């Protein structure tokens, strides 16, 4: 779909990979001489910055301890580092293609390491809740076409996912919502009055940390149970409004709206997963959505942050059986959040080498985890310099997915989308680098297992000793 016009190329139906909305209706105007995107039609404020700021920087493609080296030298050093480590960890993966994610899983398998993604510090608790409670789910297309009650809980999409309202859930006209916003009731539940409040018909502001209590009370109200014998009180005689900041009247009204809508959706964000209760909060919301299917059609969707964090969950799950926090040290995958998740492997001092792909834990992790990261050899692949790349032993500068490279990403509703790159980068992409590391790591691990170059039955016996 690219049209050549002198030095300006127009790429239609390109995809923005900045956030989990993964809007695939971009029209990019690319200055091929300058190697930059000059206009991104249909992009939101975040998308415009994403396309405008990802230009070709004058920087080394590979560095070891801050000194420029060839890519081959960096790959050799990265592979040697990972193979020598006793507890190597792989982390990040939410801002790269699913093709690259697959290579990262293979590397971790070969080195008997630990693989985790940014999901663990995002909707990881929701991932636990999915396993415990289940998920009544849908695509965003179904939401657009059918939803007449849209509830955002613990998030601020106006600032984090600006097109979520306009493209998927609030204003678009759908098959059974021909009048767009007029056909929908929008509810926002948040402790702050954010910019998202502008679209809300009903704004509910609970006290911080009371989401679980409110969700559980809603479950009771939906089922027609009284919260207490005394009006306005809760099970143990506590006034519900004093406890949660939300009146019984408001909750009763919301429960009735939920039961009586045609198609309801609960979008939920970090306000549930990053606060006390974590997976219990997400689990309560998922259980509420499930309960509501006795009365109407109701779904729940986590609003995902990074462009391909949903792909990371999918790829790691179909490669290992688990979505994040997976350890291969015994030669087979084991899942244990709290032990094999990256904040834990770093804070507890377990990890002795790290392969970080398209992520910056050195900036956003707890202090104790960052302190440990500074004391172990780190290998990074990133499009820009970050705190993590600065502290790295080996640092690769890579091409930007969706702008310089094609591939596959998953939208927040698990719909896979093929990328249309805009212009070439002199830097290799993540998949290319990871494939080379994988090849070398495989050679080194085979050498470790068969130092004498054993063959045939001897190889099998060495791998599977009786």
């Amino acid at each position, binding site marked *: 779909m690219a049209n050549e016009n002198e030095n300006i190329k127009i790429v239609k139906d390109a995809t923005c990979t900045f956030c989990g909305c993964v809007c695939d209706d971009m029209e990019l105007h690319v200055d091929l001489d300058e190697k930059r995107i000059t206009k991104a039609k249909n992009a939101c404020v975040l998308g415009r910055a994403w396309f405008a700021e990802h230009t070709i920087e004058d920087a080394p493609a590979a560095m070891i301890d801050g000194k420029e080296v060839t890519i081959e030298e960096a790959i050799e050093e990265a592979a040697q580092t990972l193979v020598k480590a006793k507890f190597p960890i792989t982390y990040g993966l939410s801002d790269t293609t699913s093709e690259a994610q697959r290579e990262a899983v293979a590397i971790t398998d070969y080195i008997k390491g630990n693989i985790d993604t940014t999901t663990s510090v995002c909707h990881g608790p929701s991932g636990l809740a999915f396993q415990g409670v289940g998920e009544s789910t849908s695509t965003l297309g179904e939401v657009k076409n059918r939803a007449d009650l849209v509830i955002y809980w613990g998030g601020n999409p106006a600032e984090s996912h600006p097109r979520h309202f306009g493209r998927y859930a609030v204003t678009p006209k759908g098959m059974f919502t021909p009048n767009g916003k007029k056909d929908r009731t929008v509810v926002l539940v948040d402790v702050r*009055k954010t910019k998202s409040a502008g679209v809300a018909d009903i704004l509910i502001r609970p006290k911080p940390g009371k989401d679980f209590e409110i969700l559980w009370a809603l479950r009771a109200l939906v089922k027609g149970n009284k919260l207490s014998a005394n009006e306005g009180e809760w099970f143990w005689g506590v006034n519900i409004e004093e406890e949660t900041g939300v009146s019984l009247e408001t909750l009763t009204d919301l429960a009735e709206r939920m039961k009586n809508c045609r198609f309801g959706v609960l979008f939920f964000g970090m*306000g549930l997963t990053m606060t006390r209760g974590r997976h219990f909060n997400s689990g309560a919301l998922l259980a509420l959505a499930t309960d509501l299917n006795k009365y109407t059609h109701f779904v729940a969707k986590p609003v995902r942050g990074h462009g391909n964090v949903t792909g990371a969950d999918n790829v790691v799950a179909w490669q290992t059986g688990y979505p994040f926090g997976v350890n291969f040290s015994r030669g087979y995958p084991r899942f244990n959040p*709290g032990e094999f*998740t990256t904040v834990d492997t770093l804070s507890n001092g377990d990890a002795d080498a790290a392969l970080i792909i398209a992520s910056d834990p050195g900036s956003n992790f707890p202090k104790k985890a960052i302190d440990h990261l500074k004391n172990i050899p780190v290998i990074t692949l990133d499009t820009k310099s970050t*705190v993590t790349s600065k502290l790295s032993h080996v640092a690769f500068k890579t091409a930007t997915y969706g702008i310089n490279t094609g591939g596959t990403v998953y939208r927040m509703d698990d719909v896979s989308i093929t990328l249309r790159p805009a212009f070439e980068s002199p830097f290799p992409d993540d998949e290319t680098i990871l494939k080379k590391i994988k090849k070398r790591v495989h050679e080194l691990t085979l050498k470790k297992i068969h130092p004498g170059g054993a063959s045939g039955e001897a190889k099998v016996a060495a791998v599977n000793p009786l």
Partner: protein
Amino acid sequence: MVDKMMLIPGRSSKQGTSLNQGKLKDEYQKITSTLEMNKDDMAKRDLVDGDKVRMWNEIGETIVSCVGKKPEDLSAGLLFIPYGPPSSQLMASDTAGTGMPLSKHMMVEIEKVK
């Protein structure tokens, strides 16, 4: 005054646009070092927009600038900051068996930096 307050790190539009420029650039550093605070709480502490405050808890400390928000937008006792390196300084590493540190609702104390 050293009353405990509740810090909520989160995303903002400006944080999102500035991180595309680069996390090591001045703009990102400035945005992730700007603390939003209820105007009444600021007045009680003799703070005006742009003042530096020291914010700390049992994990660590950081120094940021503060800016006032209307009380109807940000309740008394709450603080908001676009998440980044300063807020990470205050985050505990315990994940309670989930992998997720408590990244919001951190109890902190603040004082004006004179």
